[in-house]
């Protein structure tokens, strides 16, 4: 199967053919060699049918498995007690976040998967104020996570780049559509329902 080039990706993006589901293969390494978009910290992993995103795989520090479950409980509690905290996530333009622990032989690995609409570099910078807002960070329990991560954005960016395992194939039911567009569509649907109600 021939990889789709960035040209084709951009062409699809321009068409905004959200109604046509697509399969897309992505070259090994996660970037299209024909067109590599330069971010500020290196080549950007491109927007694909499933939008921007990353899948971070890293080894959990020995004995720290429970810290991830505690972190999840604490985060849930923080949001329950202070629902407006969720607004801090708005700049990240997220579709989904998933936290997964993977036991392998006698070791524990961690996968953090994000699908979002800003580019890779911007996401990592924008997440800093989210962390600064007081949210607990589970990454401190990962091997290789920079100790000075709160102030050293380049080091944090390097960790994400080095631990990102890009997809080599994707399927999207509504390719390239941003989370904002999905929300707009749902709002529009709700607004039309109201219009139809008023016409009765």
């Amino acid at each position, binding site marked *: 199967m021939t990889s789709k080039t960035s040209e084709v990706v951009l062409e699809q993006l321009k068409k905004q053919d959200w109604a046509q589901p697509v399969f897309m293969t992505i070259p090994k390494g996660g970037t299209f060699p024909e067109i590599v978009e330069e971010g500020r910290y290196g080549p950007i992993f491109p927007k694909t049918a499933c939008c921007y995103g990353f899948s971070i795989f890293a080894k959990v520090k020995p004995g720290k498995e429970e810290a991830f479950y505690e972190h999840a409980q604490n985060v849930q509690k923080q949001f329950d007690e202070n629902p407006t905290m969720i607004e801090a996530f708005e700049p990240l333009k997220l579709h989904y976040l998933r936290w997964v622990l993977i036991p392998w032989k006698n070791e524990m690995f961690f996968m953090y998967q994000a699908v979002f609409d800003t*580019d890779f570099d911007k996401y990592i910078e924008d997440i800093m*104020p989210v962390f600064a807002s007081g949210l607990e960070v589970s990454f401190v329990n990962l091997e290789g996570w920079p100790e000075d991560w709160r102030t050293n954005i380049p080091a944090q960016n390097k960790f994400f780049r080095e631990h990102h395992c890009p997809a080599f194939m994707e399927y999207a039911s509504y390719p390239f559509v941003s989370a904002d567009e999905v929300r707009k569509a749902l709002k529009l649907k709700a607004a039309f329902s109201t219009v139809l109600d008023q016409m009765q």
Partner: protein
Amino acid sequence: MLELDDIQHIVLTRVPSLTGRYEFLSFRHAAAGREWLKALSDTVRSTAAVRASNDKDRRWVTVAFTCNGLRTLGVDEASLGTFPAEFVQGMAARAATLGDMGANHPDNWIDKTNSPDLHAIAILFARDAAERQRCQTEHEKLIAQIEGAEVLSALDVEALPFDYPRDHFGYRDRISQPVIEGSDEVPTPGSGGPFKPGEFILGYPDDDGVQHPLPQPEILSRHGSFIAYRRLEEHVGRFRDFLREHGETPEGQELVAAKLMGRWRSGAPLILAPEKDDSALAADPQRNNDFNYKREDPLGYAMPLGAHIRRMNPRDTAPGMNHRRMIRRGSTYGPLLPEGAPDDGMERGLAALVICASLIRQFEFAQNVWINDRNFHELGNERDPIIGNQDGTLEFKIPKRPIRKKITGLPAFTTVRGGAYFFLPGIRALKWLATNGTPQVDETIG
């Protein structure tokens, strides 16, 4: 506490100049650079010194160095390795990140600022043309006396003859300028801040209270800043043609100009004056920058989401804004093209000096995300309409009820003609560079 006697004046002081000149220099060996710097060092003055005599001074001088310039002056590789990678690489090498492609590519720059031989910039601001000429002649004499010193190129800058600062397109300039905490200045309403010194000057805490590690040696980097220099040609004839094409009446043309910028050319912001220009508002610094976007105009009916000032300072619609602000100095260059006159083919534009503590976090972020991200604010196929990299395939959308106006095939109104990254040392660092450096380094380059 800001050490005003060590910070070069350009960071904290706007001087009352009407003219100026930038000279781009190269030194064949360390001795040439040091001799030049030694001769010039008494004229390069601190913020404190300039503030004390600003009323009677007739000229103001700033000097700054590229990474190759620091290397040539004897700063060793281990020290240079502690400077940020983007500064070490230089602006030309960062072209893809900055969006400097096509006509804007460094290969097309005309002032040799893309050359690895560029080592320093000497920035002169003067009260009048006579003083500029006097300083220029003095500097020519100095360069002639120093074996191994050379001027690669120079650019005369000039304020346009109006009673307020404006660019060649006719827009009022210098409305929104960040103020640094401890500088004794008061920010105008809506300008944010005062901002922590570490956002602009090395060696101070930033907005998060974090004091980032200083590049080495500290005597060189403390109280320094970085400068991104941009020589941006403004295509005035093309801009006026565009307005005529898209506005049927003079009022309609003014509205198109306002939608592109986000302000009427007078300076009145569309958020506060959405329907018609307001010259009193435009001239009132207590009001002309006092607005936000999230509640006032979330969909861009007053100010399009892609308008220049909405991109360059998204205010309450972007996170971490205090880490993105930049101090802008500089001036216009080239002759005024009178209203109604056909384009004369002369180069005219803006020679901007953008000052910040982190090129990658501030200047490059603005270029990469705010100016050239085609999907900024979900716009899909737009870049900054004034300074974005336009190749004729992009558009500009003007929200309007019932149906928005979409202008396709937006032309490039500006072209990058030169640019470079410089490190702006403090006063003590300049003396250290001029008299000390690292003498064990072989002084012959190349």
